[in-house]
């Protein structure tokens, strides 16, 4: 029997916006779950995904991806890549698998809601594939992390992370609950598919994959590549929805969703990808700095896409450009200092050679961020290791969940952007974080950061009390992965002074 060509039946087959007979359309697609923007029902008829795929083709392609990824894993399983990898790369793998796996798993249900409550047939169809994608991503993350478990207990966090109140995990949950799990299907498409997946997954998967290949980690590189090819497909749910919103007079709402989500994702990926690219990736394997990658993928490609759609640059673009030079550098200091609070074993990444690279890529780094590192180095040279872990907790931003930071040193500045709301003082790391809160205060007001919980004595107000609350049993607490070997070159040049 002759088969129809895909283009001859595809559009008809996914035109599933039928007329319900037993319930009202509003009951079938409740406003809160489908579209809080009150777009007319017929507006969704215009949804046209740029990338079309049949189930048969989808399954075949996904199988090929899995065969490729698992074949590379099997071929390299007997090698000792992990054991011989640079300490920074080991830290990167530990961080990535603990931080990313549960996000992939959570995305399964986020896409499933879009499958059920999306108002366009094509959107529901693509979201179905998205849900299947995310199942595969969670599985491949868990499987590959499991391989590393005999090497380090840190990989147990691929499974454990979401069931803890570790500060990094609280931060991730706060962000992705906001843009992915507590929005209607239309807003989800703009905030997750467009803002998050079009822009930021490129960072963690394309850039990191390239760094992995250069570092000889072909297992990780292949895994990331197969994931990114899925992201590139299902992220395209967002753009048709944005076009529909703009065409029906909802540009301001679309812009606000985009502005909120872009910033929330930036605050997650700047520390995650920024530290991995500029500190954890071995110097000899770095091609671009985090800032250079952001400039190419975000400042140019993503913004061009936004402008082409008729949207504007986010209002805070100048603030974003300033943070490209600063935020992840400040976070890296904190991540190193508060290492017992982390499931991975961080590295400093500031040997004399690495500082030269940082100064080259980020002029002024030595005078600012380097000033804090100089104090840390002085303590290590004097063998005052205990002085490299601060006694007080860091202040946490009530929006990002990360440390409230700025620029250190004599010319530096740290500003706490505060807001009093219903008798409580909130603290934010930037004017943008505060602006997001002000858009929907009731959405965010009830959340307590790890520091709010500490100040309210939810946990014992001791170091062990805080660590236990975060799920960090003594053997799980992060330590310097190099055993402070990175400071030895300084002993030759600064030893006497210390």
């Amino acid at each position: 029997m002759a088969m129809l060509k895909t283009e001859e039946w595809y559009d008809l087959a996914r035109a599933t916006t039928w007329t319900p007979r037993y319930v009202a359309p509003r009951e079938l697609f409740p406003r809160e779950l489908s579209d809080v923007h009150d777009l007319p029902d017929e507006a969704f008829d215009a949804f046209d995904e740029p990338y079309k795929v049949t189930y048969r083709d989808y399954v075949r392609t996904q199988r090929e991806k899995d065969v490729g990824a698992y074949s590379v894993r099997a071929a390299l399983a007997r090698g000792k890549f992990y054991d011989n990898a640079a300490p920074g790369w080991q830290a990167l793998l530990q961080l990535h698998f603990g931080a990313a796996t549960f996000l992939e798993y959570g995305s399964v249900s986020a896409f499933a809601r879009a499958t059920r409550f999306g108002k366009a047939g094509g959107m529901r169809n693509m979201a179905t594939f998205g849900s299947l994608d995310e199942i595969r991503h969670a599985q491949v993350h868990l499987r590959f992390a499991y391989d590393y478990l005999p090497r380090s207990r840190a990989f147990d966090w691929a499974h454990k992370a979401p069931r803890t109140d570790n500060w990094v995990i609280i931060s991730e949950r706060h962000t992705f609950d906001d843009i992915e799990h507590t929005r209607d299907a239309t807003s989800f498409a703009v905030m997750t598919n467009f803002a998050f997946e079009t822009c930021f997954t490129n960072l963690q998967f394309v850039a990191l994959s390239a760094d992995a290949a250069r570092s000889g980690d072909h297992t990780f590189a292949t895994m990331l590549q197969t994931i990114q090819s899925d992201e590139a497909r299902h992220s395209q749910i967002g753009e048709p929805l944005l076009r529909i919103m703009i065409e029906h007079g909802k540009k301001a709402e679309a812009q606000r969703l985009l502005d909120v989500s872009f910033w929330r994702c930036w605050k997650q990926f700047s520390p995650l990808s920024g530290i991995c690219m500029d500190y954890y990736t071995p110097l000899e394997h770095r091609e671009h700095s985090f800032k250079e990658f952001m400039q190419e993928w975000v400042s140019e490609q993503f913004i061009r896409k936004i402008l082409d759609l008729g949207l504007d640059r986010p209002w805070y673009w100048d603030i974003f450009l300033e943070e490209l030079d600063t935020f992840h550098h400040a976070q890296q200091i904190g991540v190193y200092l508060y290492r017992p609070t982390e499931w991975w074993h961080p590295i400093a990444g500031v040997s004399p050679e690495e500082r030269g690279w940082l100064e080259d890529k980020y002029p002024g780094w030595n005078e600012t961020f380097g000033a804090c590192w100089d104090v840390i180095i002085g303590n290590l040279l004097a063998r005052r290791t205990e002085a490299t872990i601060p006694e007080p907790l860091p202040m946490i931003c009530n929006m990002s969940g990360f440390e409230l930071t700025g620029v250190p040193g004599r010319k530096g500045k740290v500003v706490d952007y505060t807001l009093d709301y219903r008798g409580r003082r909130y603290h934010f790391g930037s004017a943008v974080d505060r602006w997001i809160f002000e858009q929907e205060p009731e959405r965010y007001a009830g959340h307590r950061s790890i520091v709010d919980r500490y100040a309210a004595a939810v946990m014992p107000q001791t170091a062990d009390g805080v660590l236990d609350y975060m799920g960090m049993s003594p053997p799980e607490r992060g330590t310097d992965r190099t055993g402070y070997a990175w400071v030895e070159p300084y002993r030759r040049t600064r030893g006497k002074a210390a």
Partner: protein
Amino acid sequence: MAAFPLVVNFVGDYGLKVLLVDAELTIAEVAAEAARQLAGVVVPPVAPGETLRVRVQGRGDTLPDDVKLTDAGLIEMETVEIHRERAS
């Protein structure tokens, strides 16, 4: 003691810290406690001849050294800046 949480910006640090202090301490004692926990850890030690001053973020005037925390009009989780002043 009644623990009083303050958000501290020890000028020169890369970020803010949360300090739990006794509400009965004076402002000078709060500054000394912040220095004990942070100077020589994230910022250089306090040098001889340097005096620490405390001010509420966003306000120009420094708080008097001898006033008690409870009498200084601060709320819990108030953000204060601690900066160094070199004797002339």
